[in-house]
């Protein structure tokens, strides 16, 4: 667990602004595992993700990533896809993908070739020179994913990357993401509020309760890989959705409950 690209989150509390967003969060992620974080809106799942990526300091507790405590951004270990995508509007799709390499000092010719290569893999070779404003929402999403994939980082953190899309496009892009990740052995933490998406994509699902969020349940997805859309019609998938709903509604119905009540 400590070696490889594993992540250990131990008793972590994180402030978002001056509000306690997550409290005593504990879970482990094995190298190469795909784990989704779900929970009610505002439960601190994005905050926990940012803390794992070193973008927010933890208030207490410890996050260990590839055997080292997280104290700040680790561009060589971690690549992000943000909820609002964070594409630079003044850079073309290709130059958005190149920026991490530019920051790392990779020569122009090499970063250009690698960026075009990855844009090709996400099906955007023909629009590489367009600016984000000239691309559809789904295309922008794929640029953001290409920017994360072009990095050699073994850990991928995705913060509701498909939240702005309709359910059909979302599951379609999710499937494509799985295809892209298939041979890369990346460790993925995926924040979402879509139960179907979490079930379809993940090895395990970490369910958080209402703010200040804490882990209420960790569910292993009982479905084989590779995942195909037909799995979403299987009884296992429906049982899983059922269980997720039960866990989520139980927790939010009991606010303030014994485990999720406000801290003084």
């Amino acid at each position, binding site marked *: 667990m400590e070696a490889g690209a594993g992540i250990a989150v131990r008793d972590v509390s994180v402030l978002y602004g001056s509000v306690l967003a997550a409290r005593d969060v504990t879970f482990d992620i094995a190298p190469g595992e795909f784990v989704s974080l779900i929970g009610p809106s505002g439960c601190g799942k994005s905050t926990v993700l940012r803390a794992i990526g*070193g*973008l927010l300091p933890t208030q207490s507790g410890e996050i260990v990533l590839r055997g080292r405590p997280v104290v700040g951004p680790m561009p060589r270990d971690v690549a992000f896809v943000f909820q609002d995508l964070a594409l630079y509007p003044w850079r*073309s799709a290709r130059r958005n993908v190149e*920026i991490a390499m530019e920051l790392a000092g990779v020569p122009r010719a090499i970063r250009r070739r690698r960026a075009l290569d990855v844009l090709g893999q996400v099906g955007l070779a023909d629009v590489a020179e367009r600016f984000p404003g000239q691309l559809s929402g789904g295309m922008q999403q794929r640029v953001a994913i290409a920017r994360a994939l072009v990095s050699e980082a073994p850990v991928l953190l995705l913060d509701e990357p498909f939240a702005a899309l309709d359910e059909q496009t979302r599951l379609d892009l999710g499937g494509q993401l799985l295809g892209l990740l298939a041979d890369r052995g990346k460790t993925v933490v995926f924040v979402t509020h879509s139960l179907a998406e979490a079930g379809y994509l993940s090895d395990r699902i970490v369910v958080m309760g209402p703010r200040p969020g804490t882990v209420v349940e960790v569910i292993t997805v009982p479905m084989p890989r590779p995942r195909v859309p037909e799995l979403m019609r299987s009884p296992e998938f429906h049982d899983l959705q059922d269980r997720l709903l039960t866990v989520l509604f139980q927790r939010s119905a009991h606010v303030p409950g014994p485990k999720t009540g406000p801290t003084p």
Partner: protein
Amino acid sequence: MTLSARRAVVYVGIVAVVGLVWVVLTATSAVAPIILPAPGGVLRSLARMAADPPAVLGPVWRTFEETAAAFGVATAVAIPLGTVIGASPLLHRAFEPVLATLAVLPLVILYPVLAASMGLGMPSKIALGAVYAFFPVVISTCRAASQVDAGLVAAARSMGAGRLAVAEHVVLPAIASRIAPGLRVGLGLALVTVIAGEFIAGLGGVGYQLAAASQRLDSPTLFAWVVVAIALTVVVNVAFGFPTAVLEKGVNR
């Protein structure tokens, strides 16, 4: 008819109507020739000026130089200053109201002081033009710097950008892509105030020629210089359009 063809028709139509009104007003002596000279007289003045290009290009070049210097000085001070003020929430809250208030003062009241201390030559025109160009640029820079998307900064940090790299790759391009309108207003004001400065008290330039013709009661020449001033404005604006397009889109390297 295509849109651009229709647009051309509208332009030609407006010019024709204005020209027609002009001809009618002067031909019927409804307006005294000293106030509004006949188009023919203005054309003859233009032709006379065209026969002696240095007499036209000299003043035009002088005005252009003063405007460019004024705009250059203004942006060289306003962009760094606006960036620093806008990037700090404290400075932004403290100084944005001050800048907004100063910007609407009739700063031309400074001109007697500038002319007295710098003389009637080019420096006083450059100073007045720079004062006017400064405010739109500093205010738009300030606003752009204060509204840099925090998500873009976080993304850059996650990709390994330190403070300097964030400034270079996020803050400056974000500002550059949004200050073009402020720059355009600043440039326009610089040109206007330079010409006004020459007109009020100058030794040369387009404004000086306007004042001279006006004082000689030579209305056809006065109007001919108005035409020259308009042509200069159009050229300056078009020339400014190219770098602005680059600013807004960035260079696609």
